[in-house]
């Protein structure tokens, strides 16, 4: 077991969310043909690191990239005589996820010991939950295609992470900084029917844990790790095929590829008349294939039993109440609401809920607008101008100099005809750069649009009176091209500030056709 290659520096969570992989194209094509006959059945087990400050059963701090074995204490080292004490902060975070996935929450759950020998498991057992987990029978609504697909969750349980072993030549190095970091393990029902759905489930879960602020969910840092149970069966068959467990899917880039390649491998074996071996396979992202790690015969008997050092984990009404109160509106709910309330497309809604800060920005901007109809236009501005400006300047939404109310104000100026859309973009750029309110920028520049009918009528009267030949040629002579001449004169007179729609309307009236 060699630790997978370290990711290259600079790959943030946003990058790792990028979908598709050029090298996956041929695999996808092969699978597409196979899948007309075969049906894949996928179950995912996702480990999510909870963002507590200290470890789940001891006071050691948690920090990524600290010097090896600097974040330890007697308990983390598994010294004789040490005892675990549960960090209640981890409970609150796990409960948020449990409630957000509509899981049944056990009032009294239990920690159990899971035994196996490995140098990065100091006690010889991992403290986990077994037959009495914290959460059961929940679901996650996954945004897929233009809608939501409900994926059932069997359970969500709390456990401690193990340390990390790296093999260098003949020697092995153990780093226990990660040992005792709190995790939740999210286990789906084996009901995911496509590679795409599996990938979208993982992305939806990633978005949700960040949304709830229970984890940074950074896969490159191992804060979100995915194992997949994969089997295939002939379409129409009821019985499940023999499954394999695919481990080490440690990047969003490889989720689809890893599972697709395993599905293809199984189908090829079955089509050649072979049988699938129940085994655990390790995904090698570098080589784009998996290899057998251990078969069922070699599988560990974990000898689970309730940890006698820890009393039952009690969830009382007080903690449930405080979490229910603080739970934000979920991304899947907003995805629906945005489409219904503002008439925006699923793709647009999906982008708006890709990040909580972005959705919150949008909601705040809409809230600052006097009527709901502003939503559609605000969405357009957020999705095009704001996201573009954020991306170009490398600014996270949370640090956008332009505040939601400012965007709302800008949209109002355009809707009221005070400024043109073109001017709006200029003002947006300045506002985004300086954080100054659009109205103030406009005021300073004196460039607001003239939409006042009386003012424009007076200007038009003057221009028509000064150009009697052209007026006659247009009105009587039928020279349509001269209409543009008059518009140009009005714009010249107003330095481009005349509202073009009203100007055109008044000119028609004044010229008689």
């Amino acid at each position, binding site marked *: 077991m060699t630790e997978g290659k370290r990711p290259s520096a600079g790959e943030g969570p946003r990058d790792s969310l990028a979908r598709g992989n050029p090298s996956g194209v041929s695999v996808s094509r092969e699978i597409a043909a196979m899948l007309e006959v075969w049906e894949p059945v996928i179950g995912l087990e996702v480990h999510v690191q909870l963002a507590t400050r200290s470890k789940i059963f001891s006071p050691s701090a948690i920090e990524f990239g600290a010097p090896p074995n600097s974040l330890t204490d*007697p308990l983390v*080292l*598994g*010294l*004789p*005589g*040490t*005892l*675990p*004490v*549960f960090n209640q902060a981890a409970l609150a975070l796990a409960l948020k996820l449990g409630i957000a996935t509509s899981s049944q929450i056990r009032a009294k759950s239990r920690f159990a*010991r899971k*035994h196996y*020998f490995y*140098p990065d498991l*100091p*006690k*010889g*057992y991992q403290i986990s939950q077994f037959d009495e987990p914290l959460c059961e029978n929940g679901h996650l609504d996954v945004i897929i295609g233009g809608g939501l697909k409900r994926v059932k969750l069997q359970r969500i349980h709390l456990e401690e992470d193990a340390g990390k072993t790296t093999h260098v030549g003949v020697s092995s190095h*153990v780093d226990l900084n990660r040992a005792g970091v709190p995790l939740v393990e999210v286990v789906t029902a084996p009901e995911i029917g496509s590679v795409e759905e599996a990938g979208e489930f993982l992305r939806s879960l990633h978005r949700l844990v960040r949304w709830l602020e229970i984890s940074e969910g950074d896969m490159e840092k191992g804060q979100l790790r995915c194992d997949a149970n994969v089997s295939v069966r002939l379409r129409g068959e009821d019985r499940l095929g023999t499954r394999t467990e695919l481990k080490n899917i440690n990047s969003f880039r490889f989720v689809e590829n890893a599972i697709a390649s395993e599905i293809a491998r199984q189908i090829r074996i079955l089509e050649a008349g072979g049988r699938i071996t129940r085994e655990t396979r390790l995904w090698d992202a570098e080589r784009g294939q998996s290899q057998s790690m251990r078969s069922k015969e070699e599988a560990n*008997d*974990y*000898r*689970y*039993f309730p940890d*006698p*050092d*820890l*009393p039952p984990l009690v969830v009382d009404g007080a903690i449930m109440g405080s979490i229910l109160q603080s739970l934000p509106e979920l991304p899947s709910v907003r995805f629906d609401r945005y489409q219904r309330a503002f008439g925006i497309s699923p793709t647009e809604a999906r982008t708006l809920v890709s990040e909580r800060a972005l959705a919150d920005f949008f909601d705040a901007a809409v809230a600052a607008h006097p009527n709901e109809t502003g939503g559609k236009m605000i969405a357009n501005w957020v999705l095009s101008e704001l996201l573009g400006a954020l991306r170009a300047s490398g600014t996270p939404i949370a640090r956008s100099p332009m505040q939601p109310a400012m965007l709302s104000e800008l949209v109002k100026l355009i809707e009221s005809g005070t400024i043109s859309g073109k001017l709006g973009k200029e003002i947006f750029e300045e506002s985004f750069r300086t954080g100054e309110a659009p109205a103030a920028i406009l005021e300073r520049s004196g460039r607001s649009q003239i939409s006042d009918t009386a003012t424009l009528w007076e200007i038009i009267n003057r221009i028509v009176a000064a150009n009697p030949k052209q007026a006659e040629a247009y009105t009587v002579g039928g020279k349509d091209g001269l209409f543009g001449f008059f518009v140009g004169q009005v714009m010249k007179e107003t330095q481009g500030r005349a509202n073009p729609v009203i100007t055109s309307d008044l000119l028609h009236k004044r010229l008689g056709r």
Partner: protein
Amino acid sequence: MSPASPASTEFWSVADTARRIAAGEITATQIIEAMLARIQKIDGELGAFLAVDGDGARAVAAELDSQRAANVPQGPLAGVPIALKDVLVTRGLATTAASKILRGWIPPYDAHVVEKLRAAGAIVIGKVNCDEFAMGSSTENSAYQPTRNPWDPSRVPGGSSGGSSAAVAAGLCAASLGTDTGGSIRQPAAFCGVVGMKPTYGRVSRWGVVAFASSLDQVGPLTRSVADAALVLETIAGFDPRDSTSLDAPVPRFTGALTGDVRGLRIGLPQEYFEAMDDEIRAALVRTASALVERGAELVDLSMPHTKLALPAYYLVAPAEASSNLARFDGVRYGQRVEAPDLLDMYGKTRDAGFGPEVKRRIMLGTYALRSGYYDAYYKKAQQVRTLIKRDFDRAFQYCDVLLTPTTPTPAFPFGAKANPVDMYLADVFTLSCNLAGLPGISVPCGLTAGGLPIGAQLLGRPLDEVTLLRAGAVIEAAVGLGDRRPAGIGGIT
């Protein structure tokens, strides 16, 4: 047996030692030097100590003496020499659990009880022998040495806290701490004619106790008097946030419990505890019960029908938990490692060389009991039996305030007498239920056999009711205890 001279400092009580030091009659250094000299003289034959921390003890004594000279206020146990069972973790002082697998391990921290003792001014004089990982009833399972019974060197001191009971009985410390998982404090106390108390589960923190069976283990004192047991328990008891099973209950002043008054106290005699035992032990228990009645207590005959299930339940629960607790001894981070070409081999060889036969037997038993598919039939079933045993006690305590039983069915037995493991397990038949139910228990000497071996009377009480046990125990001690009789079996103890 000749009465001991009261002048010898080594047999002073805990309270006396502390009081005399505080009064300036004697210095802590003098106490420690006398004790070290006595250990030097006797322990070669007795074999109680695995490590004597002479330098450490002298340094603390000197510090205490200079503090006293400067009138710095001192703790209630200032200068009192204490020996610790070697499953209690001591900072900077080797802790082996009497196992080869921990040979050479120097812990970086102190157990909670050790912190408490040090804070009270007690001096850790050394680490004493026990059965390996506290598994056994004779201390014969120590990987290092046998410990002899001070009353008869051909006999065992009991176990697993046999080093503690022998050291206390022989006057090699003022008091000792042991651990009790199925009788490991009370049984050796009975064999060596000292007082041994197992507190309510959760009364004393297990932080820093090398775990044997987590749901049963409890630390307690072995002392030469009930009053000393009260004083030491008062020092080590109390809530500790580092132990999630620690009880957040107020600690009474145990030393104030010894009123000598048992009038109206209802003493239950569970018939299941009087079925099979040596005649001399039965006679001693009858004398004990009569003495209590003479002082105003009432006797209540009781039945606790699930008693016979305690032994099989215990030998599922304790080995199961032990097999898990001992998984950490893998040669990776501390203790002894046997090098091998690959990891699995290293684990196997390290554990094969590091663990003794009884420890291996229990790891095998426990591993078997926890196998997938067997959990319900064994561990879970045993836990259900625990509930039945607890109910027996709950019901009994509706009719009585304490239970009186023999601590052991026989007095101390000769070395090698219990070669069959099951015979050895039966030595704990009267003490196991108390651990399964999480109750407090105490063993108090209640006489000697015709052959001069101590007999222990056991009192079992309601959860957190150590006070009643100490009060009744002190009455037994005064009525039928050993008085000034000291063991004369080793080194001409006088």
